[in-house]
C-alpha cells in the first residue's frame, strides 16, 4: 500500500472512484481496455504500473477474465456437496470452456449447484433451466429457512421504512457522546471474526484529528459457507444503512461506503434500491431530518478477491490500489480510507446498532453471555435438513442449532468447518461441548468467526479438504508477506503430491510450515489457515496418516 496513492486517489473523493471506473471499464469484455486504463491512471495521477497491478490482482478484472460469461461456484460448501462437476458438465454442453470461469462462493451454500450468469446467481435446481437462463428467460430465486432462538435482533422484520427511521430521528436528538455510551454499554463486538468492541473503534475514529471521516461497511462476505451478511443486505437493508448512519453521526463521518462483493449481485441491487429510497424520502443528504447531520452512501462493487475482506486490503481496494494488507499501526481509525480516520465494520455488526439505539445498550447487553453479548447469525449449508440463516442468543448450545433449528444432517457428516476457511474443523463428537460464543469456540480450539457451517461428509477425503484449503489460500493470498505467499503454495504442493504420487508428507516440515504461517503471517489469512489443518491432524489422524512419512 502506498500512502501517496491513497492521497492521490482521495483527491477525487468518492464520486469519481478509480476502482469503480475500472469495474465499469471491464464490464463489456471482462477486463478493462488498456487505453482506458492509461486514461484513468493519468486522471488519477497514478503510475501505469499501479493500475496494471490493480487490474491484474482481481479475478474479475484481470486479463484472464476476458470473455468469461458464466461462473461456477467453487466454494467449500458446493465442493463438499459434490454438486459442481455435474453442473459443469451440463454447462459445457452449452457454453465453450473459455466462456466459463469460477467464483468463490456465491452464498448459495444452502442449495449448492451454484453458478453466476450475467449479474444473477442461481443455485439448487436452477441448472435444470440452464437453457432458459442463458436466453435470459428464467428468473429463479433461491429460498432458505430463517429462525431464531432467543431475541430476534436482526431477523425480526421491521416496520415500513419511514417509521423504522424514527430510531434515527430519535438518535439525532441525542448527542453523539450519549449514543457512543449506549454502544459501550451494549458490549457489541465486531462480527467479522476478530470480535473487537465497536464502541472503541468509533471512539478512536471520533477522536482522530481530521475534517473528513468515513464509515466503511465490509460487505465482502468472502468466507465460503457464509451468507448471513447477504441475508441482512437482501432482507434487512435498512438495519444496515441506519446502523451506518448512526455510526456516522457518532463519529462525525459524512460518508458511508458499502464494499459489497461482486458475487452478490442481488445484494448490490437491493442495497442500491434501499439507498435510492432513502434519497427519495429525504433521509439522506444535507441536514437529515432537520438536524445538522449530513450523510451520503457510496456502493463499491468488489471484483473478486477474498483478501478484500481484510479491512486494510479493503481500504486499498476502494482507493484503486492493489489490495495488499497494510501494517498496523496506523489503524484505520487513525489513517484509513484516503489516509483519513475510518471505521471499518462488518455488515452484521453495523446492522445491530438500530436495535441497540431502540432498546438501549443495557437491554442488548442482557442478551448473550458475559463476554459475548447479543445474538449471532449462523449460516447452515445444504447438508442440513433445514438449511438457512438462524439467529441465536450468544451462548446457545451448538447442538440446539444443529439438531433443533437445522433439523440435523441429511447424510453422514464427519465434521463441520465452522467460521469460514480459517475457522476450526469441528468433528461431530465435539458439537455437544460447544456453545455459540467467541469464548466457547476459542477454549475448545476452534473459532466462531462468522459462524458459517460447512459440513464435510463421511466419504469426503480429509486430505482433499486440506488440499482445498491450501489451494484456496494460495489463490487468495495477496502475496505480500512471505509466509503466506510461499507457504500456502508449498502446503498445497505437499498435499497434492501426497494425493497424486508417492510423495509422503514430512510431518515435522508440515508442522514447521503451519507454525511459520500461524505466527509469521501478516494477516489472518496466512495466520488462520493452520487452525483447521491442525484440527484435521488432531481429529482425523487415522484417516490421513497413510499420506505421511
Amino acid at each position, binding site marked *: 500500500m502506498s*500512502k501517496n496513492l491513497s492521497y492521490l486517489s482521495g483527491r477525487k473523493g468518492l464520486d469519481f472512484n478509480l476502482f469503480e471506473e475500472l469495474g465499469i471499464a471491464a464490464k463489456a469484455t471482462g477486463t478493462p481496455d488498456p487505453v482506458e486504463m492509461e486514461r484513468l491512471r493519468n486522471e488519477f495521477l497514478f*503510475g501505469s504500473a499501479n493500475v496494471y*497491478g490493480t487490474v*491484474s490482482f482481481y479475478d474479475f478484472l484481470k486479463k484472464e477474465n476476458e470473455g468469461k460469461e458464466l461462473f461456477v461456484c467453487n466454494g467449500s460448501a458446493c465442493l463438499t456437496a459434490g454438486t459442481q462437476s455435474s453442473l459443469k458438465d451440463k454447462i459445457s454442453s452449452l457454453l465453450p470452456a473459455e466462456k466459463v470461469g469460477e467464483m468463490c462462493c456465491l452464498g448459495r451454500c444452502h442449495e449448492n449447484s451454484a453458478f453466476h450468469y450475467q449479474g444473477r446467481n442461481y443455485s439448487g435446481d436452477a441448472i435444470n433451466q440452464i437453457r432458459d437462463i442463458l436466453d435470459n428467460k428464467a428468473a429463479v430465486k433461491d429460498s432458505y429457512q430463517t429462525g431464531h432462538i432467543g431475541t430476534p435482533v436482526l431477523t425480526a422484520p421491521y416496520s415500513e421504512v419511514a417509521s423504522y427511521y424514527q430510531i434515527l430521528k430519535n438518535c439525532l436528538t441525542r448527542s453523539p457522546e450519549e449514543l457512543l455510551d449506549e454502544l459501550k454499554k451494549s458490549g457489541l463486538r465486531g462480527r467479522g471474526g476478530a470480535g473487537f468492541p465497536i464502541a472503541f473503534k468509533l471512539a478512536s475514529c471520533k477522536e482522530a484529528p481530521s475534517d473528513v471521516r468515513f464509515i466503511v461497511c465490509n460487505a465482502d462476505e468472502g468466507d465460503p459457507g457464509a451468507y448471513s451478511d447477504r441475508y441482512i443486505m437482501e432482507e434487512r437493508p435498512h438495519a444496515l444503512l441506519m446502523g451506518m448512519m448512526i455510526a456516522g453521526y457518532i463519529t462525525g463521518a459524512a460518508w458511508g461506503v458499502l464494499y459489497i462483493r461482486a458475487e452478490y449481485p442481488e445484494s448490490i441491487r437491493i442495497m442500491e434500491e434501499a439507498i435510492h429510497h432513502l434519497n427519495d424520502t429525504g433521509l439522506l443528504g444535507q441536514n437529515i431530518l432537520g438536524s445538522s447531520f449530513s450523510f451520503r452512501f457510496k456502493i463499491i462493487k468488489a471484483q473478486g478477491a477474498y483478501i478484500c475482506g481484510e479491512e486494510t486490503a479493503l481500504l486499498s481496494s476502494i482507493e484503486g490500489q492493489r489490495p495488499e494488507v497494510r*501494517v498496523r499501526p496506523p489503524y484505520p481509525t487513525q489513517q484509513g480510507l484516503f489516509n483519513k480516520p475510518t471505521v471499518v465494520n462488518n455488515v452484521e455488526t453495523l446492522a445491530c446498532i438500530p436495535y441497540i439505539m431502540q432498546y438501549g445498550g443495557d437491554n442488548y447487553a442482557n442478551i448473550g453471555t458475559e463476554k459475548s453479548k447479543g445474538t449471532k447469525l449462523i449460516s447452515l449449508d445444504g447438508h442440513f435438513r433445514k438449511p438457512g440463516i438462524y439467529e441465536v442468543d450468544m451462548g446457545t448450545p451448538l447442538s440446539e442449532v444443529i439438531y433443533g433449528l437445522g433439523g440435523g444432517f441429511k447424510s453422514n457428516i464427519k465434521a463441520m468447518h465452522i467460521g469460514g476457511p480459517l475457522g476450526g474443523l469441528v468433528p461431530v463428537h465435539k458439537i455437544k461441548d460447544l456453545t455459540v460464543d467467541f469464548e466457547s469456540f476459542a477454549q475448545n480450539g476452534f473459532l466462531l468467526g462468522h459462524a458459517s457451517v460447512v459440513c464435510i461428509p463421511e466419504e469426503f477425503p480429509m486430505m482433499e479438504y486440506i488440499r482445498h484449503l491450501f489451494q484456496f489460500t494460495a489463490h487468495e*493470498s495477496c*502475496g505480500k508477506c512471505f509466509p503466506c505467499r510461499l507457504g500456502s503454495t508449498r502446503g498445497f504442493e505437499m498435499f497434492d503430491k501426497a494425493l497424486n504420487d508417492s510423495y509422503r508428507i514430512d510431518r515435522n516440515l508440515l508442522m*514447521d510450515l503451519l507454525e511459520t504461517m500461524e505466527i509469521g503471517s*501478516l494477516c489472518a489469512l496466512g495466520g488462520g489457515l493452520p487452525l483447521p489443518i491442525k484440527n484435521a491432524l488432531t481429529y482425523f489422524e487415522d484417516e490421513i496418516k497413510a499420506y505421511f512419512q
Partner: protein
Amino acid sequence: MTDNKIPVAYINDKPYAIEQGDTILKLIKRNLGKNLVPTLCDAPNLEPFGSCRVCSVDVALTKGGQVKTQASCHTPVMPGSYIYTDTERIKKLRKNIIELVLTDHPLDCLTCEVNNNCELQTVAAQVGIRKVRYPEGKTHLDRQKDLSHPYMTMDLSKCINCYRCVRACDEVQGEFVLSMSGRGFDSRIIKGNDVSFFESDCVSCGACAQACPTSAISDVFESKSVVADKKVRTVCTYCGVGCNLEVAVVNNEVKSIQAPYDAAVNQGHTCLKGRFAFSFYNHPDRIRTPLIRKNGELTPASWDEAYSFIAEKLTAIKKEYGPDAIAGISSARCTNEENYLMQKFIRAVIGTNNIDCCARVCHSPTALGMQRTFGTGAATNSIEDIKHTDCILVIGANPTDGHPVTGAKLKQFAMKGKTTIVVDPRRIELAKYATYHLQLRPGTNVALLNMMLYYIMTEGLEDKDFISRRTEGYESFKSHVLSQNIDELEEITGVPKELVKKAAIAYATAPNAMSFHGLGVTEHSQGTFTVMLIADLAMITGNIGRPGVGVNPLRGQNNVQGAADMGCQPHQGAGYLNAYDPEINRQYEAFYGTKIPLGKGYKIPEMFEASINGKLKALWLMGEDVVQTDPNTQKVIKAMENLDLLVVQELFLTETAKYATVILPGASFLEKSGTYTNGERRIQKVQKVVEPLPGTRPDGQIICDIMNVMGFNQGDYEPGKILQEIAQIVPFFAGVTWENLGTNGKQWPVKPDGTDTKILHTETFKIGKGKFHHFDFEESKELVQHAKEYPYIITTNRELEHYNAGTMTRRTRNVQILKEDVLLIHPEDAARHFIQDGDMVCVESPRGKVDIKARLTDEVKPGVLSSTFHFPEVMLNMITSDVHDSEAMCPEYKVVAVNIRKSKGKYKG
C-alpha cells in the same frame, strides 16, 4: 536508563529507554546494532512494510507473561514490554521463512553479481540454513532478464518480493514506475504496463537498484558488487543539490556509484546523472595534452610550452593594452578553491577586476536581488525545511528535471495534497500535483507577483508585526502595489485573477510558507526585480527566519553558490566584499600581498562587447562553453574570434574550445579534491577518487602553475591549504577547515568556533531591516521590438537526462535515453502550421534560425514554445537574444520572439 520518568522496554531482559515513535526494530537497532535482528524488507529510507517477517521477535507485555510473535519493524514498542530477539521459536521461524524463500531462488551465489553483498545470503547464513526440505514445486527461476535499459537491469528469478524497489520508486522518487502484478505466489514486479525498463517511464534514478536486497534489480555498473579496491565519498558535479556519492574504484577506474544513506543532502538517493552519468571522465574524447594553435591548427604541446606561450602573450597584452584588456571567466563547475584561485589570478596577477563566472547567466539576479533586500545573496533556509513547511511556492523552476533529488522531495510534498503553488509557463511535472498552477505568459513574473501581493494586502493578510519589527519601506511599497490595475495584470499574465487570489491567500495563510525559484525567475529582463518581489512576498507574510519558510533559490550548477562566494564577479571580491571600495581594496592588498585593482570590471556580456569593440584582447575561460550556452551564438563567436588570446581549460573540445588559442586539459571532479557549496550554503568536501588522466591536471593546479610562471608565488594546488586561506578572508568561512567539514559539510556562515547555520535572518537581516522595493511590470524589449514579426515566444528549459551544454552527459549512456533537443509545441499551433509530431520545424528569431524536431504537447499554452540547448546539433542559442536583466546582466533565455514554419531539410545556422 531505568529512570522512572523515561519509559523503558526490555530487550532480552535488559532495559532500554524508548524514544517517541520507536518501533521494536528501531529500539533494537539503536541500542544493539543493526545486525542483531535480521531483516529483508526493511530499508533505511523506506516506511516499515512488514512483508518478510524475518525481523519477528517474541514480545510479552509483562515479565514472564504470555508471549506473542510480532514483526519488529512495524510494531510500536510498548513501555514495560519484554522483547526476546532470539528464542528458539523465533530462530526456527526465521529459518523456516528463509527456507521457504529458498524454494524459489536460484542457488547460484558464487556466480551472482551480489555474491558477498546479498542481504538474502547474509540472512540465510545468519539463520543457518543447511537444507531445503520441501518437495520440488513450482518456481519462477525461468524468468527472463530485462537488459533493455542503458543503466537498469532486472532479473526477477532473483526477486524475493520484498517490494523495496516498488516502495523506493514511490516513497523516494515518487515515480510509480514499479508495482506488483498478479497476486500470491505468482505476483511479480512490473514496470509500467508490464513493459521493459527502457519502454517504461523510468527516470533511471536507480533508487530501486540500490534498494533491492538481491540482484533482482541492479545496474549495468554492478554497483552492488563488492569488487572494489576502495570506495570514496565525494560530491556530485552536476546540479546545485550537492548529492553525496560513494564511488567504487577498481584499478584506478571508476566502477560504479551509489548514494550513501547517511548523506544529509540526499539520504541514499540521487539521480541518473549523479549515479550513472560518470563515464565521460575517461571518454576517448578527453583532451589529454595542452594544445596550442599553430598556423590555425590546434597542435599538441608540453605544459611548459603552453604556460610560457600564455605567459608571454598575457605579459605582452598587459604591457601594450593594460591589464583591463584581459579577462577571466571562472567556472561554477569547479571547486571553491579553484574559483578562489581564478579570481585571485585575475585580480592579483593580471591586475584587473575583469572576472566573472557563469552565475552571471543563471543566478546573478538572485544574488543581487537578495542582497538588496536581505543583505545576503543566498538561500535563507535549508532543503530539509520541506519537512517543516505547510506551503511551497515554486516559481520559474522545474526541479524534477533540473534538481532531481530536491525535485523528488517537492513532489513527495505535493503528492500528499499539501499546498503547492507552481508558477510556470509550462505544465511541469510538479504542476500536475500542485494545488495551484499559475500558467503565466513567459516574462510576466513581475506582474504575477504584484497580483499576489495585491491580494494579500486587500485581504488584510500581511504579517503586520513582522513588517513593523523587521522591515522598512513598507508604506510606500503598499501604496504602490495597491495602485496597480489588477485587470490589466490579469490580461498581461494570462492567469485568471481569481486563481491568483486563491494562491495568494493560500501562501499568506499557511503557518509556514517557503518559496523555491530557478532560472525561470532570473533569466529575464526583470530578473532581479522578480527575485526582490519574491523576497517581498516572504517579508509581508513574515515567512523569514524560522524552519519551513524563506526564499530558496535552486542554484543551478554544483558550485554556483561557491563561485560567487569566492569572488568571481567584477564588483565583489572573495566573501562579497566591495571590490570598488578603497578601504576594502587595502584589505585585499594586504591579504594578497600585492596591488589589487580598484577599477570597474566587465561582466560576461560586457566582455563579449569589449572583444567585438577591440578593447578586450585576451580571455581565459575555465570550463565554460560560452559558444553553446550563452545567448546569441553568432555574437559570442564573433567575440571569440576577435580575441588575440583565448585560453580554455576544458575536458573536451567544446564548441568554445574550437576557437581557443590554447587549450589546457583540466581534470574532472572525480580526479581532484576541493569543496563545493550547494544551494543551501552547504560547503562539502570533494575528494579525489582516481588520479587525473595522464596529460591532464586539476584546474586549480593549472591556475597555480600559471600564477607561479607569471611570478606570483602561489605554490601547488592543495585544497586544504587554500581553504585555510579562504577562511581568513571570507568572513562567513571563518570557522571552516578541511578537517571539520566532516562527511556532511557545514552550512555557511560558519562561526570561528565551527558552528554552522541552517537558517539565515532569524533575528535580524544582514543589512539590519529588510527593504521593500516595488517594481512595475515592463514588457521585455525583445517582445516590444519583435513580437509583431515573431509572434511566438520560445522559452528555454532543461531535461533530466542532460546537463546544460551536455558536454559531459552526452558522453555517457544518457544519450541512449534522450538523444536530441526537441521543440515543445501546442497542438493548436502545430495544426496552424501543418506540423505533426516528429516533423522538423524551423524556428527563426531576429538573430538566426534553427531546425528542430517538434513534439506536440499541451504542456505549453498556444503561442508558447519551449526547448533545450543540450545538443550542439541544434545550437538553440543561435536564436536567443542578448536582452538581459537590467540589474545583473543575466541574459533573457526565457523570452525569445520567434516565428515557426514546417521545414523540410535540416538547417543548422
